[in-house]
């Protein structure tokens, strides 16, 4: 994996470093362009650039950003100085930027530790060049059809690119990813506790229903959501593994988790109150424990944390809440998880769907097939008074809501973003949830501001 550095590499490194410096002087982060340029100038730049002594990768369909950030935060608070792509791209260019930024003028690295969030689709462009000591795979679900096709494809590219000596930290309840690279050393994490809040039935998508070895229908002991759960094949030895890091008890009131670990039962703070937060927490605990961090260090770091701001923001005016949450467009599982979270929130609610594809809006017509794999049925709830479908695809969303059984007087289309605040029936609800895509954040913030102004006027 460690390749001899060439003059071409040195040239690419210097150009990229100069570019990074120039971008910094211009006040820009420059988390993609320098790495992209370096790879263009020297195609195996990632192979030649120096890497820290220990490199951790975090990949998977959902949760990789949060887990990477959690792990990075804990490591920093524990006295390490890990490098990572927290503020940058999780592609080969983003990772090249991180590595070139931390290495010397001849390309060597003196860093001890890296935590790299890796786009699973980019594995063939990263893993052959960057040796990972640890790789976390949070889960694998169908994601963007355009980029990721289906989980069989993503599994196969991971399978063929993971190094045999990489230790795997795997989701024991995800039968799609936890059988990858069976020869590799591994530990499994998951939730063993069986409580109603961490279980939702009736999902549209199940990415594994038949045994990949023999084709028999899998027998599920339970399904937590989608295909996440425990199952075995009645015909062969395929099935869910035992968990090494198992959440045994969830205390939502006090935000505490009891986790069985190889060192015994331990208590950790739950950062958030969603099932995905529980998975993210136990994933981070598994990785950090495998790295050798003590429970005390992990706990101390968790105690000082908040959920990443762009994913959950809350404002309160009088007795009403306005919550902005990330519901990634083109990602049916992520949206379904958010819908499930929203329906379980207390009080009467209005939901604003503002996660159309911002870039497709400028150039083309968005493929809306993903809406039909998303559990809009979760929004058909007596406490959800209004589902406002906003933006260029408002009619498609409205139609999807109607197909999900949401009554026509609750499912409304608002094709013009700027009219959304006026269409909301704020007097009927306790909470307004604005569900945004990564790239409709600004539009959502503008809407949030208008709603807050209306509420403040009402309060005054």
């Amino acid at each position, binding site marked *: 994996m460690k390749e001899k550095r060439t003059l071409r590499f040195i040239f690419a490194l210097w150009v990229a470093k100069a570019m990074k410096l120039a971008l910094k002087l211009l006040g820009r982060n420059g988390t993609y362009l320098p790495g992209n340029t370096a790879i263009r100038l020297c195609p195996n730049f990632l192979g030649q650039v120096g890497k820290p002594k220990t490199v951790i990768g975090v990949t998977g369909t959902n949760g990789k950003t949060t887990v990477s950030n959690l792990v990075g935060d804990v490591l920093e608070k524990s006295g390490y100085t890990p490098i990572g792509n927290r503020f940058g791209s999780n592609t080969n260019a983003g990772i090249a930027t991180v590595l070139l930024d931390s290495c010397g003028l001849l390309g060597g690295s003196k860093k001890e530790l890296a935590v790299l969030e890796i786009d699973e689709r980019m594995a063939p462009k990263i893993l052959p060049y960057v040796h990972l000591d640890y790789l976390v795979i949070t889960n694998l679900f*169908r994601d963007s*059809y*355009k*980029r990721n*096709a*289906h989980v*069989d*494809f993503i599994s196969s590219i991971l399978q063929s690119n993971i190094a045999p000596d990489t230790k795997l930290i795997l989701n024991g309840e995800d039968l799609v990813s936890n059988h990858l690279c069976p020869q590799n050393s591994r530990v499994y994490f998951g939730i063993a506790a069986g409580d109603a809040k961490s279980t939702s039935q009736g999902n*549209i*998508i*199940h990415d594994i*229903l*038949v045994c990949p070895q023999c*084709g*028999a*229908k899998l027998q599920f002991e339970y399904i937590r959501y989608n295909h996440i759960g425990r199952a075995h094949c009645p015909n062969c030895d395929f099935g869910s593994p035992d968990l090494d890091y198992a959440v045994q008890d969830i205390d939502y009131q006090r935000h505490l988790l009891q986790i069985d670990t190889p060192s015994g039962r331990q208590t950790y703070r739950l950062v958030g109150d969603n099932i995905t937060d529980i998975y993210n927490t136990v994933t981070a605990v598994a990785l950090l424990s495998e790295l050798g961090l003590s429970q005390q260090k992990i706990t101390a770091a968790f105690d000082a944390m908040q959920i990443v701001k762009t994913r959950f923001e809350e404002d309160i005016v009088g007795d009403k809440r306005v919550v902005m949450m990330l519901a990634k467009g083109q990602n049916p599982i992520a949206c379904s998880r958010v819908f499930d979270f929203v329906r379980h929130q207390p009080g009467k609610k209005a939901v604003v769907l503002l996660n159309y594809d911002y870039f497709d809006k400028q*150039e*083309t*017509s968005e*493929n*809306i*097939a*993903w*809406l*039909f*794999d998303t559990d809009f049925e979760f929004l058909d709830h007596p406490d959800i008074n209004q589902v406002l479908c906003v933006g260029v695809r408002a*009619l*498609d969303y*409205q*139609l999807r809501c*109607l*197909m999900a059984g949401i009554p026509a007087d609750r499912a409304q*289309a608002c094709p013009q973003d700027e009219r959304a605040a006026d269409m909301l029936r704020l007097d009927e609800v306790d909470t307004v949830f604005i569900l945004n895509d990564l790239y409709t954040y600004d539009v959502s913030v503008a809407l949030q501001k208008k709603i807050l102004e209306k509420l403040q006027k009402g309060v005054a």
Partner: protein
Amino acid sequence: MKIEVLFPEMCNLFGDSSNMKYLQQCLPQAEFVYTPFDSEPAFVTEEVALVYIGAMTERAQQKIADKLQPYQARICQLIDGQKTIFLATGNACEVFFDYMENEDGTRDQGLGIFAGFYAKRDLFHRYNGLVWGTFEDMDIIGFKTQFTMAYGDNENCAFMPVNRGIGLNKQSRLEGVRRGSFYGTYLVGPLLVLNPPFTRYLLGKMGVEQPQLAYPEVVEQAYQQRLAEFKDPKVQYE
């Protein structure tokens, strides 16, 4: 009226299952049979108005082709006699071709119902695009997302000519395949939700008198909006 959905646990990618959900809402009295992979299809022994099969993984294609092989003659009899409509979306069409060829030249055998047709897989290059075509006199719009390109002379057996977008492959202007009452199109996702005129046509072919669609106003408005977008020369198709 019986409608059969083949192997829904495997043939459900890219939102394709929405087609039958929508049809179910258009035909609340119809009987929908969801045939799992380990069962014999209903069309083998029973009278079925429509058989639907949706997109699947490349690995599943061979399994499905092997599963259907014993019923190849029965399928031909049903579609040539126009007794049962078969609707295949996305790469489900390929199962009915001669073969699917991998990058290394190896082949997965298909059912050979469309003789001379084959698909070439290229897992390194995914094709995504929009399609606007004309079926009979109806505008049909939709999306393609696939690893394969198909080949074969479909001049007299295409699903539809395309106005914009690609046909069987990047050089082709003829989309999909048709034989008797078999309709095969590479369009994925909610084809029937997106195309109310085609859905009405299909319902008519199934013997439904005065076909009524579910949520007709919203479906029609969404269709007209999308059609206008697809006809806009500024809209990028790839």
